[in-house]
């Protein structure tokens, strides 16, 4: 299960890099709002990419408790585990 989380984190960082630009360093503690400036339109693109990449659907109510890269990776990981 930990492998899956790491896998999710790695793929997620890849997508975030495309949004934020290559010069931005992304760690699990990176704040999506403050440091990556994910506005609502970028967020939609990100969710679409996540849903396609991980074959999941991200419930909108869960995003209210997501602020960092780790929290988002964890959410994706949880949804994936529930599926299996």
């Amino acid at each position, binding site marked *: 299960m930990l492998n899956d989380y790491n896998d999710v984190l790695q793929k997620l960082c890849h997508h975030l890099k495309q949004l934020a630009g290559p010069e931005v360093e992304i760690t699990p503690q990176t704040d999506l709002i*403050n440091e990556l400036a994910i*506005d609502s339109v970028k967020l939609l693109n990100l969710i679409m990419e996540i849903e396609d990449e991980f074959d999941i659907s991200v*419930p909108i109510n869960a*995003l209210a408790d997501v602020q960092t890269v780790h929290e988002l990776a964890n959410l994706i990981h949880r949804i994936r585990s529930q599926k299996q």
Partner: protein
Amino acid sequence: MTSTINLEGKTLSSTIAKLNAPLTQAFNPQLSSEQPAAAIPTPTYNTQAQRLADFDTLIAALEYAAAGTAGYNFYDAKGNLRSVLPYQALRQNAQTAARQLLGLGLARGDRVAIIADTTPEFVEIFYACRYAGLVPYAMPVPVNLGSHAVYVRQLRGMLEAGQASAALANVDYVGFLKEAAEESQHLRWVGTPEQLGELPALTTELAPNSPDEIAYLQFTSGSTRMPRGVVITEGALMSNLQGIVRHGLNIRAGDRCASWLPFYHDMGLVGMVMAPMVAQVSVDYLATRDFAIRPLQWLRLISRNRATVAFSQPFGLKLCTLRVRDSDLEDLDLSSWRAAGVGAEMIRPDTLRNFAEKFAPAGFDARAFLPCYGLAESTLAVTFSEVGQGFQSLRVDAATLVDRKMAVRLQVEGRKYSEFVNCGRALPEHIVKVVDEAGQQLPDLRVGSVLVQGSSIMTGYFNNPEDTCKTLKPGNWLDTGDLGFLFEGDLYITGRRTDVIIVNGRNIRAQDIEELAEQQPEVRTREASAFGVTDANDVTTIVLVIECRLTSITDRQSLTSRLQRLVYMAFGVNCLVELVPPHTLPRTSSGKLSRFAARQGFIQRTQMTDQLSAESGDK
């Protein structure tokens, strides 16, 4: 590049169906979320004679529609039909829920707050309230990252402002609702529609409604300490609905609607939930979230079900233009779409042109564009352009517009111009006028405040005489807060007065942002000013100017990033924070900050001279 949704394959999981539609499945036990739904949507052609909103009340309209075969259809993110709610079943379920609501001990006229996800249950509870003589109001779903605390505060504000006696949300949102309800004085019951369904129902007769009683409240501003609930009576509602379906849309047999608009928005609720029902027309719904992530799904719904009427904010059209790929156009046939209503925010001609150009290969006819103008304070619609004629616009000299607040039609090519979309004429029983700052009526082509008078105007803001008095002028003229001019009887909107900033289709009150700033220990009251600036690409950015005494760079940075974060969490948008020395912000004689002057000052400091457009025409 990622792949887009594949209807037949399994590129998307059904988790969303599980998480977002548990109650739907409770009503449709035969639907397994793993299999495409086998049910068929309600038909386009009805079995009953069409009556166009000639009813006294909403419930009278539903009683009639229930005798036919039309209804509401709910689609999931994959484009599968998840739930069908014919008006007949809606009537039945709403009556049952009405008796259960009355069983809670609620009295006629009590308010019921409902978090309005795009589900059959929301619609059932909404109509149930009217059957029970209760006053429903819709509350939004959370949309922003990390917005938990802000969202709960927003709900609490709405529960208080509407003095709700009961509040409902589906399982996804009921947790937020319960948190918000913790300290409530008025609430007698909080739960899910499912829990309501388990309660005993009163067997009493449901008393009919009268045209002068309150039909519902509509909250207009998303996030604010004291949100305002617009009070709409049955009479105002039915007048506006009749104007929309007859005068605005010329609804006829064969019409079908498709909508992604949120049910907590007036255009979604009045325009795409109530208006189709009062004309016995079927509607196909896509959740707003699903549209936002994959706008193509909305167009597919129109194409597949041969929808004729579908509305959007300009921002929604932009999303389609930006995010639908050319390779997706092959499977689309948008030729049935005869009324592409556009409204709810200022319409830029280029947004429409780009959309038309992109989707012409898919059969979209630009004559379908139907610009309209309206606001919740006038139920929904105020003006409609002529259906089937496409959009018309006027190019006016930009300099004269700014300097003299006059729209002078462009005579010579090459001069800088502003182009405005014709929003059409007022609905029957309504008058639109444009006035100057002294309230004097202005002639054609002079820019001023847009005022409306007529049968669908609100009675006021709920429990808020102060704001009501500011907005409803003598003679029951509604001050819309918008700027514009009239020309040959048609209305052209040139901008919004500076108290509201529209970003990505969302209305954000400048005051709300300023209050957020003033809650910081470093910021004093009346030392923050918020406004929007729009660049040449039509992208609006929120600017927050703060008078700041901090000297250390670290402190200043900390304040700046904290403010940006707070604004993001509350409104989902980025903002630009400028710290200026004390006494920089211009004030009026009464000591009030002038946002207009603050905006001009900012533009001068940053030399964004393009910004001095007619949008900022007030003081």
